[in-house]
Protein backbone atom coordinates (compact mmCIF):
# COMPACT_ATOMS: atom_id res chain seq x y z
CA UNK A 1 0.00 0.00 0.00
CA UNK A 2 2.81 2.33 0.90
CA UNK A 3 4.54 1.58 -2.36
CA UNK A 4 1.37 2.21 -4.31
CA UNK A 5 0.69 5.47 -2.56
CA UNK A 6 4.14 7.00 -2.43
CA UNK A 7 5.86 5.54 -5.44
CA UNK A 8 4.89 4.49 -8.89
CA UNK A 9 6.23 0.96 -9.10
CA UNK A 10 2.84 -0.71 -8.98
CA UNK A 11 1.37 1.21 -11.87
CA UNK A 12 1.96 -1.69 -14.22
CA UNK A 13 0.30 -4.15 -11.83
CA UNK A 14 -2.68 -1.88 -11.50
CA UNK A 15 -2.90 -1.51 -15.22
CA UNK A 16 -2.85 -5.25 -15.88
CA UNK A 17 -5.38 -5.93 -13.14
CA UNK A 18 -7.62 -3.18 -14.36
CA UNK A 19 -7.63 -4.71 -17.81
CA UNK A 20 -8.76 -7.92 -16.12
CA UNK A 21 -11.52 -6.12 -14.25
CA UNK A 22 -12.66 -4.22 -17.32
CA UNK A 23 -15.06 -6.96 -18.54
CA UNK A 24 -16.81 -6.84 -15.17
CA UNK A 25 -17.30 -3.11 -15.46
CA UNK A 26 -18.45 -3.57 -19.02
CA UNK A 27 -20.98 -6.20 -17.99
CA UNK A 28 -22.38 -3.90 -15.32
CA UNK A 29 -22.50 -1.04 -17.78
CA UNK A 30 -24.25 -3.04 -20.48
CA UNK A 31 -27.88 -3.23 -19.26
CA UNK A 32 -27.90 0.44 -18.36
CA UNK A 33 -26.50 1.41 -21.72
CA UNK A 34 -29.05 -0.80 -23.45
CA UNK A 35 -31.82 0.83 -21.46
CA UNK A 36 -30.61 4.27 -22.45
CA UNK A 37 -30.36 3.30 -26.09
CA UNK A 38 -33.85 1.87 -25.95
CA UNK A 39 -35.30 4.98 -24.38
CA UNK A 40 -33.48 7.07 -26.97
CA UNK A 41 -34.91 4.94 -29.75
CA UNK A 42 -38.42 5.22 -28.42
CA UNK A 43 -38.56 8.99 -28.21
CA UNK A 44 -41.63 10.42 -29.87
CA UNK A 45 -41.32 12.22 -33.17
CA UNK A 46 -42.64 15.43 -31.72
CA UNK A 47 -40.07 15.72 -28.98
CA UNK A 48 -37.34 14.85 -31.45
CA UNK A 49 -38.45 17.64 -33.71
CA UNK A 50 -38.61 20.04 -30.81
CA UNK A 51 -35.14 19.06 -29.74
CA UNK A 52 -33.90 19.37 -33.28
CA UNK A 53 -35.17 22.88 -33.70
CA UNK A 54 -33.82 23.85 -30.32
CA UNK A 55 -30.40 22.46 -31.14
CA UNK A 56 -30.40 24.16 -34.52
CA UNK A 57 -31.17 27.44 -32.83
CA UNK A 58 -28.39 26.85 -30.36
CA UNK A 59 -25.92 25.91 -33.07
CA UNK A 60 -26.84 29.09 -34.90
CA UNK A 61 -26.27 31.14 -31.79
CA UNK A 62 -22.96 29.48 -31.01
CA UNK A 63 -21.78 29.87 -34.57
CA UNK A 64 -22.49 33.54 -34.46
CA UNK A 65 -20.57 33.84 -31.26
CA UNK A 66 -17.76 31.75 -32.68
CA UNK A 67 -17.31 34.13 -35.57
CA UNK A 68 -16.59 36.84 -33.10
CA UNK A 69 -14.13 34.59 -31.28
CA UNK A 70 -12.36 33.84 -34.52
CA UNK A 71 -11.70 37.50 -34.98
CA UNK A 72 -10.59 37.87 -31.40
CA UNK A 73 -8.33 34.84 -31.60
CA UNK A 74 -6.70 36.16 -34.74
CA UNK A 75 -6.19 39.48 -33.11
CA UNK A 76 -4.81 37.86 -30.00
CA UNK A 77 -2.34 35.81 -32.05
CA UNK A 78 -1.25 38.92 -33.88
CA UNK A 79 -0.68 40.78 -30.64
CA UNK A 80 1.20 37.85 -29.20
CA UNK A 81 3.33 37.68 -32.30
CA UNK A 82 4.13 41.32 -31.70
CA UNK A 83 5.09 40.48 -28.14
CA UNK A 84 7.30 37.67 -29.37
CA UNK A 85 5.59 34.77 -27.61
CA UNK A 86 3.80 31.92 -29.28
CA UNK A 87 0.72 30.15 -28.07
CA UNK A 88 -1.31 27.53 -29.80
CA UNK A 89 -5.01 27.38 -29.14
CA UNK A 90 -5.60 24.11 -30.92
CA UNK A 91 -5.80 21.47 -28.23
CA UNK A 92 -6.41 17.91 -29.30
CA UNK A 93 -9.56 16.42 -27.79
CA UNK A 94 -11.18 13.02 -27.56
CA UNK A 95 -14.72 12.29 -26.46
CA UNK A 96 -15.01 9.65 -23.76
CA UNK A 97 -18.16 8.09 -22.45
CA UNK A 98 -18.85 7.62 -18.78
CA UNK A 99 -19.33 4.05 -17.65
CA UNK A 100 -22.26 3.47 -15.35
CA UNK A 101 -20.31 1.82 -12.58
CA UNK A 102 -19.93 2.82 -8.97
CA UNK A 103 -16.46 3.31 -7.60
CA UNK A 104 -15.18 3.97 -4.14
CA UNK A 105 -17.91 5.65 -2.11
CA UNK A 106 -17.05 8.97 -0.43
CA UNK A 107 -14.63 9.84 -3.18
CA UNK A 108 -15.47 11.58 -6.39
CA UNK A 109 -14.25 9.21 -9.04
CA UNK A 110 -15.77 8.34 -12.39
CA UNK A 111 -14.77 5.72 -14.89
CA UNK A 112 -14.54 6.49 -18.59
CA UNK A 113 -14.25 4.14 -21.54
CA UNK A 114 -10.92 5.37 -22.87
CA UNK A 115 -7.60 4.06 -21.67
CA UNK A 116 -3.94 3.82 -22.51
CA UNK A 117 -4.85 2.33 -25.89
CA UNK A 118 -6.35 5.68 -26.82
CA UNK A 119 -3.32 7.57 -25.58
CA UNK A 120 -4.73 8.65 -22.23
CA UNK A 121 -2.03 9.62 -19.73
CA UNK A 122 -2.00 10.14 -16.01
CA UNK A 123 -2.88 13.64 -14.89
CA UNK A 124 -4.63 14.36 -18.16
CA UNK A 125 -7.21 17.14 -17.86
CA UNK A 126 -10.84 16.22 -18.49
CA UNK A 127 -13.46 18.82 -19.40
CA UNK A 128 -17.05 18.92 -20.57
CA UNK A 129 -19.23 21.51 -22.27
CA UNK A 130 -19.47 23.55 -19.09
CA UNK A 131 -15.93 23.53 -17.82
CA UNK A 132 -13.26 21.51 -16.08
CA UNK A 133 -14.36 18.11 -14.81
CA UNK A 134 -11.21 16.64 -13.30
CA UNK A 135 -8.07 14.72 -14.12
CA UNK A 136 -7.17 11.14 -14.92
CA UNK A 137 -5.72 9.29 -11.94
CA UNK A 138 -5.58 5.60 -12.88
CA UNK A 139 -5.76 4.02 -16.26
CA UNK A 140 -5.98 0.59 -17.80
CA UNK A 141 -5.79 -0.51 -21.39
CA UNK A 142 -9.43 0.22 -22.13
CA UNK A 143 -10.72 2.43 -19.35
CA UNK A 144 -9.47 4.96 -16.88
CA UNK A 145 -10.57 6.63 -13.68
CA UNK A 146 -11.05 10.34 -13.37
CA UNK A 147 -10.85 12.28 -10.12
CA UNK A 148 -13.44 15.07 -10.11
CA UNK A 149 -12.57 18.58 -9.02
CA UNK A 150 -15.09 18.25 -6.19
CA UNK A 151 -13.15 15.48 -4.46
CA UNK A 152 -11.87 16.73 -1.10
CA UNK A 153 -8.35 15.75 -2.16
CA UNK A 154 -8.38 17.73 -5.36
CA UNK A 155 -7.40 21.32 -5.99
CA UNK A 156 -7.27 23.42 -9.16
CA UNK A 157 -5.23 26.58 -9.54
CA UNK A 158 -7.72 29.20 -10.68
CA UNK A 159 -8.10 32.88 -11.25
CA UNK A 160 -11.08 35.16 -11.20
CA UNK A 161 -11.94 36.15 -14.70
CA UNK A 162 -12.95 39.69 -13.88
CA UNK A 163 -9.73 40.86 -12.28
CA UNK A 164 -7.22 38.04 -12.66
CA UNK A 165 -6.98 37.36 -8.93
CA UNK A 166 -5.23 34.01 -8.48
CA UNK A 167 -6.24 31.43 -5.93
CA UNK A 168 -6.86 27.71 -5.52
CA UNK A 169 -10.22 25.96 -5.77
CA UNK A 170 -10.41 22.99 -3.44
CA UNK A 171 -13.04 20.26 -3.58
CA UNK A 172 -15.43 19.88 -0.69
CA UNK A 173 -16.84 16.41 -1.17
CA UNK A 174 -20.22 17.78 -2.25
CA UNK A 175 -20.79 17.71 -5.95
CA UNK A 176 -22.11 21.24 -6.14
CA UNK A 177 -19.48 23.22 -4.27
CA UNK A 178 -15.82 24.14 -4.34
CA UNK A 179 -14.02 26.42 -1.91
CA UNK A 180 -11.57 29.17 -2.79
CA UNK A 181 -8.84 29.05 -0.20
CA UNK A 182 -6.82 31.79 1.42
CA UNK A 183 -8.61 34.78 -0.02
CA UNK A 184 -8.15 37.70 2.39
CA UNK A 185 -11.22 39.55 3.61
CA UNK A 186 -10.46 42.57 1.47
CA UNK A 187 -10.01 40.57 -1.73
CA UNK A 188 -12.11 41.75 -4.62
CA UNK A 189 -14.54 38.87 -5.07
CA UNK A 190 -18.23 39.14 -5.74
CA UNK A 191 -21.08 36.72 -6.06
CA UNK A 192 -21.47 35.76 -9.70
CA UNK A 193 -17.82 36.14 -10.66
CA UNK A 194 -16.60 33.59 -13.16
CA UNK A 195 -13.68 31.49 -11.97
CA UNK A 196 -11.40 30.07 -14.68
CA UNK A 197 -8.36 27.84 -14.51
CA UNK A 198 -5.10 29.75 -14.36
CA UNK A 199 -2.89 27.02 -15.79
CA UNK A 200 -0.26 27.62 -13.14
CA UNK A 201 -0.21 24.03 -11.95
CA UNK A 202 0.80 22.99 -15.47
CA UNK A 203 -1.86 20.28 -15.33
CA UNK A 204 -4.93 22.11 -16.49
CA UNK A 205 -4.99 24.36 -19.51
CA UNK A 206 -5.45 28.05 -18.94
CA UNK A 207 -8.79 29.74 -19.33
CA UNK A 208 -11.28 26.91 -18.99
CA UNK A 209 -14.22 27.82 -16.75
CA UNK A 210 -14.26 26.13 -13.36
CA UNK A 211 -17.36 27.68 -11.83
CA UNK A 212 -19.12 30.79 -10.63
CA UNK A 213 -18.91 32.25 -7.15
CA UNK A 214 -22.14 31.61 -5.33
CA UNK A 215 -21.42 32.91 -1.87
CA UNK A 216 -18.89 35.11 -0.11
CA UNK A 217 -19.01 35.19 3.67
CA UNK A 218 -16.74 37.12 5.98
CA UNK A 219 -16.25 35.60 9.39
CA UNK A 220 -15.34 38.42 11.79
CA UNK A 221 -12.67 36.33 13.54
CA UNK A 222 -11.13 34.83 10.43
CA UNK A 223 -8.36 36.36 8.36
CA UNK A 224 -9.74 34.72 5.22
CA UNK A 225 -13.22 34.90 3.78
CA UNK A 226 -15.15 31.81 2.85
CA UNK A 227 -15.86 31.77 -0.86
CA UNK A 228 -18.03 29.04 -2.34
CA UNK A 229 -18.00 28.24 -6.04
CA UNK A 230 -20.58 26.26 -7.99
CA UNK A 231 -18.78 24.13 -10.58
CA UNK A 232 -19.84 24.95 -14.11
CA UNK A 233 -19.24 21.44 -15.44
CA UNK A 234 -22.29 19.24 -15.04
CA UNK A 235 -20.43 16.86 -12.78
CA UNK A 236 -23.37 14.77 -11.68
CA UNK A 237 -25.27 14.63 -14.93
CA UNK A 238 -22.98 14.39 -17.90
CA UNK A 239 -22.61 11.19 -19.84
CA UNK A 240 -19.77 12.29 -22.05
CA UNK A 241 -16.59 14.13 -21.27
CA UNK A 242 -13.68 15.43 -23.31
CA UNK A 243 -10.10 14.36 -22.79
CA UNK A 244 -7.65 17.14 -23.57
CA UNK A 245 -4.17 16.95 -24.98
CA UNK A 246 -2.59 20.30 -24.44
CA UNK A 247 -0.72 21.72 -27.33
CA UNK A 248 2.86 22.00 -26.21
CA UNK A 249 2.41 18.84 -24.18
CA UNK A 250 4.62 16.74 -26.38
CA UNK A 251 7.56 18.02 -28.38
CA UNK A 252 7.60 21.75 -27.88
CA UNK A 253 7.74 21.71 -24.11
CA UNK A 254 9.98 24.74 -23.98
CA UNK A 255 7.23 26.65 -25.71
CA UNK A 256 4.67 25.58 -23.16
CA UNK A 257 6.78 26.83 -20.32
CA UNK A 258 7.40 30.26 -21.67
CA UNK A 259 3.70 30.81 -22.22
CA UNK A 260 3.35 33.47 -19.57
Amino acid at each position, binding site marked *: *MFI*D*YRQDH*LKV*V*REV*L*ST*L*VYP*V*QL*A*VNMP*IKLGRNLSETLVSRKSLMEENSRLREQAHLLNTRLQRFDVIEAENLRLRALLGSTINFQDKVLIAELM*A*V*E*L*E*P*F*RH*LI*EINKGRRDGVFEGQPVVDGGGIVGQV*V*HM*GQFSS*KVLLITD*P*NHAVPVQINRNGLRTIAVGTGQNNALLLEHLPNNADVKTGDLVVSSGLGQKFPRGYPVGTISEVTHEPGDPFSKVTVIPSARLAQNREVLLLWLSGEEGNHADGETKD
Partner: protein
Amino acid sequence: MPQSAHSRSWIIALSLLVALMLTAMPLPEWAVNWRPAWVAMVLIYWCMALPDRVGIGISWTLGLLLDVQQGTVLGQNALGLAVIAFITLKSHQRLRVFPLVQQAFLVCGYILLFQIIVLWIKSMLGIPPMHWSYWMPAFSSMLLWPWIFIILRDVRRKFKVQ
Protein backbone atom coordinates in the same frame (compact mmCIF):
# COMPACT_ATOMS: atom_id res chain seq x y z
CA MET B 1 -13.43 -37.29 -6.48
CA PRO B 2 -10.72 -34.68 -6.70
CA GLN B 3 -11.22 -34.20 -10.40
CA SER B 4 -14.93 -33.42 -10.26
CA ALA B 5 -14.44 -31.20 -7.25
CA HIS B 6 -11.86 -29.30 -9.18
CA SER B 7 -14.15 -28.89 -12.14
CA ARG B 8 -16.68 -27.13 -9.93
CA SER B 9 -14.35 -24.29 -9.06
CA TRP B 10 -16.11 -22.17 -11.63
CA ILE B 11 -19.17 -21.99 -9.37
CA ILE B 12 -17.10 -20.30 -6.69
CA ALA B 13 -15.43 -18.06 -9.24
CA LEU B 14 -18.78 -17.16 -10.76
CA SER B 15 -20.32 -16.25 -7.40
CA LEU B 16 -17.35 -14.02 -6.61
CA LEU B 17 -17.62 -12.44 -10.04
CA VAL B 18 -21.29 -11.71 -9.50
CA ALA B 19 -20.37 -10.15 -6.16
CA LEU B 20 -17.85 -7.91 -7.92
CA MET B 21 -20.50 -6.89 -10.44
CA LEU B 22 -23.01 -6.10 -7.71
CA THR B 23 -20.38 -3.92 -6.07
CA ALA B 24 -20.06 -1.84 -9.21
CA MET B 25 -23.78 -1.72 -10.00
CA PRO B 26 -25.17 1.81 -9.95
CA LEU B 27 -27.77 2.36 -7.25
CA PRO B 28 -30.18 5.23 -6.70
CA GLU B 29 -28.81 8.09 -4.65
CA TRP B 30 -30.46 7.11 -1.37
CA ALA B 31 -29.28 3.52 -1.54
CA VAL B 32 -25.64 4.16 -2.37
CA ASN B 33 -24.53 4.29 1.24
CA TRP B 34 -26.47 1.15 2.03
CA ARG B 35 -24.73 -0.99 -0.56
CA PRO B 36 -23.97 -4.28 1.18
CA ALA B 37 -20.42 -5.57 1.20
CA TRP B 38 -21.20 -8.20 -1.42
CA VAL B 39 -17.69 -9.47 -1.95
CA ALA B 40 -17.00 -9.80 1.76
CA MET B 41 -20.26 -11.67 2.31
CA VAL B 42 -19.73 -14.18 -0.48
CA LEU B 43 -16.18 -14.67 0.66
CA ILE B 44 -17.26 -15.31 4.24
CA TYR B 45 -19.71 -17.89 3.00
CA TRP B 46 -17.14 -19.83 0.98
CA CYS B 47 -14.55 -19.61 3.74
CA MET B 48 -17.11 -21.04 6.10
CA ALA B 49 -18.47 -23.74 3.81
CA LEU B 50 -15.28 -24.84 2.09
CA PRO B 51 -12.38 -23.70 4.26
CA ASP B 52 -9.97 -25.99 2.45
CA ARG B 53 -10.73 -24.49 -0.96
CA VAL B 54 -11.18 -20.80 -0.37
CA GLY B 55 -8.63 -19.16 1.85
CA ILE B 56 -6.51 -16.14 2.49
CA GLY B 57 -4.70 -16.26 -0.85
CA ILE B 58 -7.92 -16.08 -2.83
CA SER B 59 -9.22 -13.33 -0.54
CA TRP B 60 -6.10 -11.29 -1.06
CA THR B 61 -6.26 -11.62 -4.83
CA LEU B 62 -9.93 -10.78 -4.83
CA GLY B 63 -9.22 -7.77 -2.65
CA LEU B 64 -6.65 -6.54 -5.15
CA LEU B 65 -9.18 -6.87 -7.95
CA LEU B 66 -11.66 -4.94 -5.84
CA ASP B 67 -9.05 -2.24 -5.24
CA VAL B 68 -8.42 -1.85 -8.93
CA GLN B 69 -12.11 -1.89 -9.72
CA GLN B 70 -12.91 0.77 -7.17
CA GLY B 71 -9.82 2.88 -7.75
CA THR B 72 -8.58 2.67 -4.16
CA VAL B 73 -5.02 2.24 -2.98
CA LEU B 74 -3.78 -1.22 -3.94
CA GLY B 75 -3.99 -3.48 -0.90
CA GLN B 76 -6.66 -1.66 1.05
CA ASN B 77 -9.48 -4.09 0.38
CA ALA B 78 -6.98 -6.92 0.02
CA LEU B 79 -5.79 -6.55 3.60
CA GLY B 80 -9.33 -6.21 4.94
CA LEU B 81 -10.63 -9.25 3.08
CA ALA B 82 -7.60 -11.34 4.02
CA VAL B 83 -8.14 -10.55 7.70
CA ILE B 84 -11.83 -11.47 7.67
CA ALA B 85 -11.05 -14.61 5.67
CA PHE B 86 -8.53 -15.56 8.34
CA ILE B 87 -11.05 -15.02 11.15
CA THR B 88 -13.73 -16.92 9.28
CA LEU B 89 -11.35 -19.82 8.68
CA LYS B 90 -10.53 -19.90 12.38
CA SER B 91 -14.18 -19.90 13.41
CA HIS B 92 -15.81 -21.77 10.54
CA GLN B 93 -16.83 -24.76 12.65
CA ARG B 94 -18.56 -22.57 15.17
CA LEU B 95 -20.18 -20.41 12.48
CA ARG B 96 -21.65 -23.46 10.74
CA VAL B 97 -23.70 -24.61 13.75
CA PHE B 98 -25.03 -21.19 14.68
CA PRO B 99 -28.64 -20.38 13.78
CA LEU B 100 -29.00 -17.96 10.87
CA VAL B 101 -29.80 -14.94 13.01
CA GLN B 102 -26.74 -15.37 15.16
CA GLN B 103 -24.67 -15.91 12.03
CA ALA B 104 -25.98 -12.65 10.65
CA PHE B 105 -24.86 -10.78 13.75
CA LEU B 106 -21.42 -12.32 13.54
CA VAL B 107 -21.15 -11.47 9.85
CA CYS B 108 -22.09 -7.90 10.73
CA GLY B 109 -19.24 -7.90 13.23
CA TYR B 110 -16.78 -9.26 10.69
CA ILE B 111 -17.75 -6.67 8.12
CA LEU B 112 -17.47 -3.93 10.72
CA LEU B 113 -13.95 -5.16 11.35
CA PHE B 114 -13.27 -5.06 7.62
CA GLN B 115 -14.52 -1.50 7.51
CA ILE B 116 -12.42 -0.50 10.50
CA ILE B 117 -9.32 -1.76 8.68
CA VAL B 118 -10.29 0.13 5.55
CA LEU B 119 -11.04 3.24 7.59
CA TRP B 120 -7.68 2.95 9.30
CA ILE B 121 -5.89 2.81 5.95
CA LYS B 122 -7.96 5.65 4.56
CA SER B 123 -7.24 7.91 7.49
CA MET B 124 -3.54 7.17 7.14
CA LEU B 125 -3.84 8.38 3.57
CA GLY B 126 -5.67 11.47 4.75
CA ILE B 127 -9.00 10.72 3.12
CA PRO B 128 -11.32 9.60 5.94
CA PRO B 129 -14.98 9.41 4.88
CA MET B 130 -16.18 11.46 7.89
CA HIS B 131 -19.81 10.49 7.75
CA TRP B 132 -21.78 8.10 9.90
CA SER B 133 -23.28 6.41 6.85
CA TYR B 134 -19.85 4.88 6.25
CA TRP B 135 -20.92 2.08 8.61
CA MET B 136 -24.21 1.32 6.91
CA PRO B 137 -22.92 -1.49 4.64
CA ALA B 138 -22.25 -3.66 7.69
CA PHE B 139 -25.90 -3.44 8.74
CA SER B 140 -27.39 -3.89 5.31
CA SER B 141 -25.11 -6.93 4.93
CA MET B 142 -26.43 -8.25 8.21
CA LEU B 143 -30.00 -7.95 6.98
CA LEU B 144 -29.16 -9.68 3.72
CA TRP B 145 -26.99 -12.42 5.14
CA PRO B 146 -29.75 -15.05 5.62
CA TRP B 147 -30.75 -14.79 1.95
CA ILE B 148 -27.18 -14.87 0.72
CA PHE B 149 -26.51 -17.85 2.91
CA ILE B 150 -29.55 -19.79 1.70
CA ILE B 151 -28.96 -18.98 -1.97
CA LEU B 152 -25.29 -19.92 -1.87
CA ARG B 153 -26.00 -23.06 0.13
CA ASP B 154 -28.58 -24.20 -2.38
CA VAL B 155 -26.21 -23.44 -5.24
CA ARG B 156 -23.46 -25.36 -3.51
CA ARG B 157 -25.70 -28.37 -2.91
CA LYS B 158 -27.20 -28.33 -6.37
CA PHE B 159 -23.83 -28.33 -8.08
CA LYS B 160 -22.23 -30.46 -5.37
CA VAL B 161 -19.31 -28.12 -4.90
CA GLN B 162 -17.08 -29.53 -2.20
